[in-house]
């Protein structure tokens, strides 16, 4: 915090709702976090926790209607993105911040060649001739481990892992300062996932890109992240560096997550899952959103939601137990 210049991203109280016919879906409820240059944040949460929504919010890509950014602040390089004009956004997206979407199978345009799609983003943000852009695109392709001869092939001629690598190449083509990766490996097999993760690690180092890694896999986080934020029902319930979260778990939800995981190293007869289900974001319970499932529930939890408490330097927990 003291060295403000090194902070790339600064998010405060970001709140995003989807206003649908069936009610207001409170997908993201006031999340705040910072990201330094070169740092990787893991954003972990179960389905529907609001991870993708938060990421789209950072890109200003929330589908509107029905999505609405209700309040908050997103500052990238000192600029408030929520106030940016359309024109500024075109320069921002893909150049300063780029995003890898959840499903590599559908993220590529099926009728354009892979080369076209990489070159497109280069031509948009860098003053280059067509030839130069294609040259750079082929370099990018090589970089992610695909022979550049395959530039003129179409996405359907690629396997899932290769497509994901193309998506990564597109995201990195303009050397963005921040890369948001939305579950980039969920759709892939473990062996391929390992390849892709290795590649991302390598590239992140090479370009010194900051990264937000969205996942629901606590294993993936340890592979690539410096910091972790655990999301539950649109809120960050616990955040800190890897050690804080993995070794010094505080929030009952985070504990529950770890208890639910079958482990390779130790054999347990039964897992100890969290009971119940994630609440419907259109109909969140009063008080702490986790209280209906919480083993440590206190009467107060039903009425009041805790504030974010910093229990150690950089380790935040949002739970009344630690307030």
């Amino acid at each position, binding site marked *: 915090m003291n060295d403000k210049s090194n902070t790339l991203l600064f998010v405060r109280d970001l709140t995003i709702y989807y206003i649908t016919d069936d009610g207001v879906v409170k997908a993201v409820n006031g999340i705040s976090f910072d990201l330094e240059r070169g740092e990787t944040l893991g954003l972990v949460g179960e389905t529907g926790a609001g991870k993708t929504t938060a990421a789209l919010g950072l890109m200003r890509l929330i589908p509107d209607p029905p999505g609405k950014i209700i309040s908050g602040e997103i500052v990238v390089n000192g600029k408030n993105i929520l106030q940016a004009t359309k024109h500024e956004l075109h320069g921002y997206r893909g150049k300063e911040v780029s995003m890898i979407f959840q499903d590599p199978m559908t993220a590529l345009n099926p009728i354009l060649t892979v080369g076209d799609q990489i070159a497109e983003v280069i031509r948009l943000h860098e003053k280059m001739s067509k030839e130069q852009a294609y040259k750079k695109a082929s370099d990018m392709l090589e970089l992610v481990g695909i022979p550049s001869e395959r530039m003129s092939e179409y996405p359907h001629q690629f396997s899932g892992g290769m497509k994901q690598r193309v998506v990564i190449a597109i995201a990195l083509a303009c050397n963005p300062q921040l890369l948001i990766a939305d579950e980039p490996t969920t759709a892939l097999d473990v062996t391929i*996932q390992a390849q892709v993760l290795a590649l991302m690690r390598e590239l992140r180092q090479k370009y010194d890109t900051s990264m937000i890694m969205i996942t629901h896999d606590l294993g993936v986080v*340890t592979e690539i992240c410096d910091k972790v934020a655990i999301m539950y029902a649109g809120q960050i319930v616990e955040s800190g560096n890897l050690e804080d979260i993995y070794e010094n778990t505080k929030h009952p939800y985070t504990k529950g997550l770890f208890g639910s995981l079958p482990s*390779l190293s130790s054999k347990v007869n039964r*897992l100890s899952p969290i009971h119940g289900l994630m609440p419907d974001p259109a109909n969140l319970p009063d008080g702490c959103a986790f209280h209906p499932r919480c083993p440590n529930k206190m009467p107060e939890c039903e009425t009041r939601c805790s504030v974010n408490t910093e229990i150690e330097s950089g380790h935040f927990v949002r739970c009344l137990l630690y307030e």
Partner: protein
Amino acid sequence: MSKLLEVRVLKKYFETKRGLLHAVDGVNFAIDEGKTLGVVGESGCGKSTLGRVVIRLLDSTDGAILFQSKDITNVKDKRTIRREMQIIFQDPFSSFNPRMSISEIIGEPLTIHKMCKNKVELKDRVSELMDTVGLALRLANSYPHELDGGRRQRIGIARALALDPKFIVCDEPVSALDVSIQAQILNLMQDLQEQRNFTYMFITHDLSVVKHISDEIMVMYLGMIVEKCESNELFEHTLHPYTKALLSAIPEPTIKKTKQRLLLQGEITSPINPKPGCRFAARCNYACDKCSQVTPTLEEVSPGHFVACHLVQPCTIIA
């Protein structure tokens, strides 16, 4: 302990536009009653196909399936098979008819097999089943789309249980679920197994899950078994290079262990008209000439531990 199911040189080929797809190619294994056989492997390696062929949802191309020592490979009347062998599907979203209510879905097998004398009995049975899998009775008239994934998977289990089968193929029943829900379901399945002595064939691509639930594990690669042994043995004495790679690729949710990684090159090759030789050879870091010429067979290298790899069993085959 008796063998409930035995499979011999089972093959399943699909005709496709591009050629013959060897989805399952000469698989041998047996499952003891009351045990769980875990099947792991990458996407497309033939796990689901194997599961379906075993319970005769698909007809096999070749080989034999023995259930309770009876050859059921070509039995025409599948009614008894259906009652003895059931399946739980991966996708809790598409495995239910969206136009049927929960009670109708669970009651359907009972109706088809005329296992209830009247409506009242049917209703009672359905309530019982719902109770068993932990579904609240008030959901009886709901529709699947109104429920979350975890509950839906419980419906799937209840439907499979309805006919009181001995053997259940679980085709990635938890892959689509969040970890917290996944744990609930896994516990339920284990409870049921203990209570009713079910035999599971548990298909998954998640090694930690398979380790947690299985007694024996079978690793598949492109339609073939590459390694098969008792669960702990597999993790302690991994023999096949593919299994090794698989294990090392799993990101573990701990920050203590720094494990040595074994990255595979390239991706899974096409199962269409495969050439002779080890199917893993193209990606294998240790492959030699022989690997690309001779197909390794599954050999027992230590008691109960089977491997199909030339490097592990060098003396068994003469080129």
